[in-house]
């Protein structure tokens, strides 16, 4: 069962890993963007967002994710989504997010993909 929105984050190998839990809407999206911005200003340029516990994303929440992608792209970085529910995966695809962001099955896969990239 999905919970009220919360997130945790950690930086591993200079990669920011944000793990969300709950509805990625205006509140959730803003929380993700805020957490991203805090690390972005400190120089983090590769981000992994683990959406395993977020089965529902609305377009307002998605607009925050797009902003993160744009900032990272401008800065030569990359965003990778992991542990996606099939419906969220399809949603991100239709909204065109995979044109500029990646997706991997697990966080470990994403870390490996970003290591090859950099």
């Amino acid at each position, binding site marked *: 069962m999905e919970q*009220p929105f919360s997130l945790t984050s950690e930086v591993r190998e200079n990669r920011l890993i944000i793990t969300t839990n709950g*509805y990625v809407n*205006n509140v959730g999206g803003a929380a993700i963007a805020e957490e991203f911005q805090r690390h972005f200003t400190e120089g983090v340029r590769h981000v992994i967002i683990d959406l395993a516990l977020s089965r529902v994303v*609305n*377009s*307002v929440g998605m607009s925050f994710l*797009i902003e993160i992608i744009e900032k990272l792209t401008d800065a030569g970085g990359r965003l990778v989504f992991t542990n996606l529910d099939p419906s969220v995966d399809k949603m991100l695809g*239709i*909204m*065109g997010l995979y044109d500029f962001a990646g997706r991997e099955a697990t966080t470990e896969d994403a870390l490996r993909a970003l290591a090859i990239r950099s």
Partner: protein
Amino acid sequence: MQDSVIVHHVTFTGIEDPVDLRALGQATGLADIAIRVRTALAQHFRITAVDVHVRGADGAWELLAGSAPVDPASVPPVGPDSSGTVRFWAEGMQAIAVQCLHDGRILAIRVDGQSESRRFDAQDLLTVRMALMSADAAWAALQHRRHEKELVFELNRRLLQLNSLIDTGIEVATLDQAVSPCHLALERAVALTNASRGTVIVRRDGGEISRDAFPPDGDATSAGGTYRLHSEFVFQGETYTFEIVDKETRTGVQAFDGTDRLLLDALSRQVEASLENRFLLKQSLEKQRMEQDIAVAASIQQRILPSTLPEIAGYSLAGINIPSKSVGGDYYDCIPLRDGRYLLVIADVSGKGIPAALLVSSLHAYLSAYLESAFSLVDIAVRLNTAIHRASTDDKFITAFFGLLDPASGSVECVNAGHNTIYCRRADGEVVDLCKGGIPLGMLDLGLPYESEQITLVPGDRLLLYTDGIPEAQNGVQELYDTHHPLRDYFASHIPATAGPFIDALMEHVRSFVGDAPQADDITALYLMRRA
């Protein structure tokens, strides 16, 4: 004329554009554009006093880049169609240029601090003007890019809504899903309409049966929330209400629009269709299970009814049972007893189907048990009446005829428990009615007595035991067989050499009368004749 065009062209291309348009193209907003323009002009004129201002619809000037506030009196008038106006004052040591932007706001650039030796000339004037136009073009391009991005986003969002609607329709129709159709539809409704939360409530007779919210802490029916939208349907007496609250934007909430209404209604209808399909499937499975149960009951009943009848020396015996449904409520048998006698029995349970079949089973079981004891036939009838009364509901009873045959003497003790009159045809053609006995078994348990009558069969005598399915067999116009062909007469006039042909002929006669009309009742008959 030709010369002046050439001169104009040469003059224009000779002006230096101080602003790098590529750099302007990367600007992220009007303030960023202003900073880039200011930097470029400051570098070009090698001065620091360059300010960029914007005037909004309220007429107030806002400083975008630089430090000095604008003096409204120094700004040349500019209309909405102005493509740029430049004005010099202080004897050419200051310049201020204004441009009406594409969005209607006024952009102004003030350049100050030229020295006596370096006054603004016509070329500087054009340089400032070009910078201003570049800023306007960059701002327009940025706005177009943003607008295009918004259009693409909105287009994708519509595509997503359509796609999600189709997917949800398929998913809620899936029967083995972990998430309930209501919850799934609620999640999708909240996400696709950008609602902040939603609830689905199921009510019956005004009372709440269940409530589901998404997010789990976001009950839409709780206080708070400015904008609400709901959709409901009634299925099997239960009212399903979907309610969503507050359409989110990046800056707050707004009212739901017509598309949101369509989406919520469509998702709600998908759940209704899914529930209906599940209900129909459940009914179909129940029917299937019931048919399987009936098949098992029919199989059990077939074991109760005799597969073959005993061979009785000096007698010919034949019987038949044709149930009108898979399982019937008729019963017949010829049970050999330990003392060499035989009990002929035929019975008809009121009603049909499984309940009747169950009562037939009870009769068979009780009769088998009582026959093991040394009860008289009348006692057996009394006990059967009590037992069946206890085992059945008030509207169920059994009519039965019992004939206890001593094959050696030909004597038959008869008890008719509310059954049709049983016929005995003497060898000389006389037909004797056998109807003495008592009430149907299980009808009343008041201790009413049963009585028996005795007959003796001599060679050539015959007995016909039957159920009402034969005389009451109906043809296509609801006429009764017995009305056209009294069974008593048929029995009297058809005297084959053995029992089997009589049963076959009787069945064929009934069938030819009934024609294509469906069989309304079970048909059972038992025929006994004494040969020697």
